[in-house]
């Protein structure tokens, strides 16, 4: 099972790239822990997660080929 993680805004400064791939991650909570371990600076920024373009506010089970986005505060307009 594979998931795709998209990264935007100031978070790209931390990850150095706009998309990441992970395998065998069961939930957004698990993903978040792994991200914080891989990129400790993520702990200092505010962001929401979207699963398949829908913002989630609770731990969410992930499925094969899900797309998760890390969304720092929007600043359009």
């Amino acid at each position, binding site marked *: 099972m594979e998931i795709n993680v998209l990264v935007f*805004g*100031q978070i790209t400064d931390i990850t150095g790239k706009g998309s990441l791939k992970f395998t065998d991650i069961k939930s957004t909570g698990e993903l978040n822990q792994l991200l914080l371990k891989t990129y400790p600076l993520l702990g200092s920024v505010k962001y929401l997660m979207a699963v398949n373009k829908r913002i989630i506010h609770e731990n969410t089970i992930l499925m094969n080929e899900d797309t998760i986005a890390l969304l*720092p*505060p929007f*600043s*359009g*307009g």
Partner: protein
Amino acid sequence: MENEIASKINWTIFNTYKMEGKKKHKVFIEGPVSPAFIAESIAKHSSKTNIGAHSLFLGQVRNDKIGEREVVAIEYTTYQEMADEKFHEIREDAFKQFPLICMHIYHSLGLVKAGEISLFVFTSSVHRKDAIAACEVIVERIKKEVPVWGREILDNEDYQWKVNT
């Protein structure tokens, strides 16, 4: 009775057509929104003679001072698939909430210099209150809900990420 059904059917067809029209509308444009583009948008509405009022909002890039530096441009990026869905939702809601004749949203991607325009919201209605109220609601929602990010480019080529208030 037959007339009533016929009129309902027509209404449904019309609405579907309208929704498709709305879905196809392209919001993002590369670089700034030019005054000439705005003029063209306005001119296109002169054939819709049931319109009595237009409300336009334009977001212009400010040369904010950051300590001793100043912002010379903003570079906009987006999560396009999600932004398109959100713009569509904002559009649908606006047509439900207000009796609008037309609405258009344009947002820049890429580099927009200080003094140039990066957001153009344009609502039209029979009576002024509707266009004005809808335009304001739409602008607020765009700022809060649409995944777009601005990177403020400073005059020493350094940058910082824009924060919306």
